[in-house]
């Protein structure tokens, strides 16, 4: 039984080890040659969450998944895809969680309504405190 277990461990560990030793994707640590395209890619990457890290964007993470996503995004930008299109594709694949830029949806509308309400409330308070006593 023991050897079977050992074999199982090796069989299970092999893909993991292989994954670790894989070189990073081509554009994970390399910029695009065209500075305008690179700036576009950079701006997009800064607004995407690294799913395996804590509160870091994929633009500033050493995680291998963030590297793969950087490479994917640079490749797509270089191929002429628009940042908005890439974001929608990523949201479709990973969900809203991946984008730091919340969309207005049935769930997220208070994120936009409440600041507007705060603005009105603030103006109201200022008017009440200052308006009457001129």
């Amino acid at each position: 039984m023991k050897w079977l277990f050992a074999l199982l461990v090796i069989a299970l560990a092999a893909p993991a080890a292989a994954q670790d030793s894989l070189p990073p994707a081509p554009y994970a640590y390399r910029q695009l040659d065209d500075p305008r395209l690179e700036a576009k890619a950079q701006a997009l990457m800064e607004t995407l969450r690294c799913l395996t890290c804590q509160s870091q964007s994929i633009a500033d993470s050493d995680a291998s998944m963030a590297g793969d996503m950087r490479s994917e995004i640079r490749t797509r930008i270089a191929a002429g895809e628009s940042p908005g299109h890439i974001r929608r594709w990523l949201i479709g694949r990973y969900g809203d969680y991946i984008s730091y830029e919340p969309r207005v949806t049935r769930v997220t509308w208070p994120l936009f309504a409440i600041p507007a309400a705060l603005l009105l409330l603030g103006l109201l308070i200022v008017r009440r405190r200052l308006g009457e006593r001129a």
Partner: protein
Amino acid sequence: MIAEFGLACLWLAASLAALQLVAASLGQRAGGETLASVVRPAAVVQALLCGVAFLMLLWVFARTDLSVLLVAENSHSEKPMIYKIAGAWGNHEGSMLLWVTIMALAGGLIALIEHRLPERTMLATLGAQAFVGLGFYAFLLFASNPFARISPAPAEGNGLNPLLQDIGLAMHPPTLYMGYVGLSIAFSFAVGALLTRNVTPDFAKVMRPWILGAWIFLTLGITAGSYWAYYELGWGGWWFWDPVENASLMPWLAATALLHSASVLASRDALRTWTIMLGVIAFSMSMIGTFLVRSGILTSVHAFAVDPTRGTFILALLAINIGGALVLFAARANTIAEGERFAPLSREGALVINNVALSAVLGIVLLGTLYPLVTEAFGVRVSVGPPYFNPVSAAFVFPMLLVLAVGPLLRWRRDRFARVKPAVIAIAAAGLVVLLAMWLIAGLALFPLLGVSLAAVVAVAAFLPLQGRSLKRLPLPVWGMAIAHFGVAVALFGMSVDTAFTVEKLSAAGVGDMVEVGPWQVRLTAVEPVAGPNWTALEGRLSASYKGGAGHMLAPQSRTFWAPPQTTSESALLTRWNGQLYTVVGGATQDGRWQLRLWWKPFVTFIWFGGLLIGLGGLLALIGRVSVDVRRRVATRRIAARRAETAR
């Protein structure tokens, strides 16, 4: 024995807090004078006992006593002494003990020295302090005992998270906690004033040094935390709107508003309810921050606790303290008289606008931080990050900075626009010149452009209130205000310029290769293995020259720790007056070259210099206030002594 002694001290301190609460409540009644006289000594002894308990924890960590569970889980015998000691608060239980200790020490101090307020109000204040403290003692003793033993003791400890093994981070939690917990004094004063219906300028004067002190620590804590994230995380970012960062920003925003509001109350007897409200909110934000970080509701480097019972415990404490204070506020707010009136164009008017704006920003940060937790509870995961926080908070902060520029020029109570017109024109001109120059020459994007222009506006405006006054006789708090406001301008300048002009260069370099980044030429001269006390590393040797000048050596490392096993990038920075060269070395590529990450970040250091200036301004104001108070005490004592002499 050391651990048991510490635990015993903690239990005794908790029972003294209970005594303090009971005596303060019953001592308010007629005939309760004996009980009332117990309150102050109880607070002082409680502080001493708690201090001793904390020293005992430091001691077991310094000795690496592995029979104590907390030490075994968070320390390691082969660790530099400084990180053994810092490890005492680099974990959930130890940091909560630190929290309680600071709170007890602050409470003991006001019991010892504060005699300006009516004794009834002081009793209520110390009672409130004991009430809040008691909740945290219960949390420590029942849900987070730092002195628990483990048997048999393990041969070796688990070690401290390598990211935390850094001198900046070792001092970060104590600094922030001084700020968080210092606000508890403001909270207790606010509750005491509400309970005894005694909201006076004296109350604001007594509260003000505590707010200032807490605010200075928060400012420095946030500044240091930001710099730590900048050089430790290895990608050159300095603010991530991470919930943990927001947890420290929210009390700071509330304390900033409170500070200004309390100054209006102290010098003009206006904004009474507003000051009380902010006093309650500021410490509430500290507690919410602690809940977010300590409950494990966010899983990050800071979230050491994953035990939900603890989260529920803190949530209950939060509900009782904040809820209770808000109910009290709602019940008593209308009994507080309105205070002195003022015209819209007056310094009070400007401060009202700024307080409203700061509160709104606080609301936005709170919303953006908590909202993802709320949706997650309903099974929808969303992220709220910089693309949300930056523009939404800027919409409030930018107009507020305009008011900040003009406010200090205005007179109290009432002013005429004609009087300040020349100054306003000068400020506006400075802003417009920078705006046009940056727009036409540098072609900046909207936010950096507005940021740089407003930095110019605030920088010029910061020193205008000093105009025409004798600089030698200027009170320290006025200097403090000017310097702190100037610090805001400096930090804003750094943020905007870094955002607009950072140059990034990612490359794979072989030994001997040259890489250009902005005005720098960087050559990789060697890659060497090096070893530290508890890590090994690959160290890149870089020679960097600015615009073809002499070469400067840099040595970034890629470190591998073995307890616990983890790899970190240690960046190497080269600081010039006009910015920083930021270098990181990563792993080897397949063809035997090395990953190099280089940034030229113009004026990025101004962000933290600005933070330091803001803190320095606060310190000057604090010294000014405290020295006046000390002089007053000495004078009254001398008068009393002279009277006693003549009576004899």
